[in-house]
């Protein structure tokens, strides 16, 4: 495995996600109009945009659930849509946290978390169960939660369990659709800390859709902003705050945005 440390690769940043000229359309509704986005390895990238700008659709396209109407999407160098039909390589390398959790309602929490390990990697039952309990612990839940059915959980617990399931295979890329929506502020802050620690410790790349300004300021290394069917800017927060676009200014410089900014500065 000597070629792993070939110098050319070490210097060039690795592109984990490439979206080129993506067009997504529902009838007359043009959601993405030649959208481009390249995400490099490392850190947490936030995807921000008004309601209905197509963030969830972008996520569905990146995870191969939707075929691009035109354009190209590559995750770790492979096209995800064709991937679902062929091999299952990507399914081992990514974890997805859906907006509403999407836990399997007929399985207990523990079985939900064990499922990817058992099915993808044939992890023996007992070991998978132990690891599932460990993930439950990692996302800050009690072990007793493992026996419950998804319908018996609160919204915040469901989010955490869904995160535990997304982390089941220790993915390289973690997609999150509004992870902190519906959590109380303390829970949301803990969730943010958890994400920070996990990305830091494990080198997970996180792609996070969020409306939560606290989380964006606290954990995102870079932010991509969706508007008018495109990514209008993809940069570090400082540069985004200085970006002269009416929506961006209204979003970050509005009353809520200013409040968070001032708090961040105090810290």
């Amino acid at each position, binding site marked *: 495995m000597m070629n792993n440390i070939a110098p050319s690769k070490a210097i060039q940043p690795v592109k984990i996600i490439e979206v080129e000229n993506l067009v997504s359309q529902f009838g007359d509704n043009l959601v993405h109009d030649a959208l481009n986005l390249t995400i490099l390895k490392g850190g947490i990238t936030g995807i921000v945009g008004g309601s209905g700008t197509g963030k969830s659709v972008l996520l569905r396209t990146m995870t191969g659930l939707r075929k691009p109407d035109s354009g190209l999407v590559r995750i770790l160098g492979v096209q995800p849509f064709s991937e679902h039909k062929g091999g299952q390589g990507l399914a*081992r390398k990514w974890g997805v946290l859906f907006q509403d959790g999407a836990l*399997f*309602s*007929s399985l207990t929490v*523990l079985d939900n978390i064990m499922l990817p*390990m058992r099915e993808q*990697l*044939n*992890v*023996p039952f*007992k*070991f998978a*169960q*132990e*690891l599932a*309990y*460990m*993930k439950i*612990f*990692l996302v800050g839940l009690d*072990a007793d939660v*493992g*026996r419950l*059915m*998804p*319908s018996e959980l609160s919204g915040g617990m469901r989010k955490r369990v869904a995160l535990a399931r997304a*982390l089941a*295979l*220790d993915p390289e890329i973690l997609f999150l659709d509004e992870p902190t929506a519906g959590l109380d502020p303390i829970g949301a802050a803990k969730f943010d800390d958890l994400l920070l*620690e996990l990305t*830091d*410790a*494990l*080198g997970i790349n996180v792609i996070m859709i969020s409306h939560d300004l606290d989380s964006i300021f606290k954990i995102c290394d870079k932010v991509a902003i969706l508007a008018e069917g495109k990514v209008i800017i993809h940069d570090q927060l400082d540069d985004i705050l200085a970006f002269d676009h009416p929506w961006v200014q209204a979003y970050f410089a509005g009353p809520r945005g200013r409040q968070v900014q001032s708090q961040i500065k105090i810290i």
Partner: protein
Amino acid sequence: MNKILYKIHAEGQRLNLQLTGRWRLVGLAKIETKLVRDVKQAFHKFGPDCEFYIDGSGLDSVDTSGVYLIMKIQQLAKQYFGKIQAYQNMPREFESLSIKLKNFDFKQHHIAVPSILMQIMEVFGNLGKAVTGTLNSIGEIFLLLGMFMVGFWDMITRPWQFRYTSMIHHLQNMTIPALVIVAAVSFMVGAVLTEQAAVRLPGFGAEELVVSFIGMTTTRETSILLTGMLVAGRSSSSITAEIGSMRMNEEIDAMKVIGLDVMRFLVMPRAMAMLIALPILTFVAIVAGLVGSAVLLNLRYGMSINVFIERIYTGLEISDIGTALIKTPFIAVALVMVACYEGMKVRSSASSLGYHTTVSVVKGLFLVIIIDSVIAIYFTQLNRLG
């Protein structure tokens, strides 16, 4: 190929667990059992006086499952040697993750498999539950009848609040797609019954006796039974699935909170639609059954259609059709109420939706037969007395 992920070796009183390669779930899944066994064996072999070290200098990478496994071995060592043992040269990822797992209780992670005795007891328990469940559902029928009457009263006292568009929509769904299948099934059963009867009644002209007999069976019994069963399969299941998924989606709760009456909004339109649809379908079934019978007699036994019609006129009374149609409102109400009620029982899991849909159809079929028999017996007795 299984890569070697660990080596156990001893130097004097020092036992070393040397970790190598990529300690990730993919590889660990295969070696976990063996690793734990090897480690335990080594502990026993070297005895409690030796020192145990875990050396991570050879690790390329480690993920949470790797960290977990390393810490689990450490716990084993702690149990065995009675004191915390040291790590050496662990990578940075390990340090930060093991801090997070510091308070994790490594002993709690087993759900006991129930013993055989318990499983057998459970079978008896389930049997008992099934019995009480059946008794309950008999009581339920009266409850549902009551609910329907309340809803019906509400509808006739405040007809302007009735959801006509919704009813029309359901009426369409219940009749138009069902017409062809009801007609086809009834046609075939009519033909087959006629053939069976004609073959068994010997001698010349026997087919003519067949007409009135089959005509009566088709009109009074097979038509309504077949229609009822087909509707139980088609409409009961779809009503339960519809209402059940509305429950799962919390739509029913939303309705209640907005102050909408579930009975008025969901149940009555479907019940009224069914009350109209079932007689129509039954009538279609009667006609199709008779046509089937006529076609068979014509093709196989050369009976002309005119003769058939004449026989039907003399052999059938209008009350025969009435007997069939009088059953339809009872069956319609029973099917809709059971279907809606089962739908309301759905809890937020996909399997409960499937379960209640099945139950709704099974109860529906059962009720179709029960109601049909009860009313049939009632009318036959009435005829005999009168």
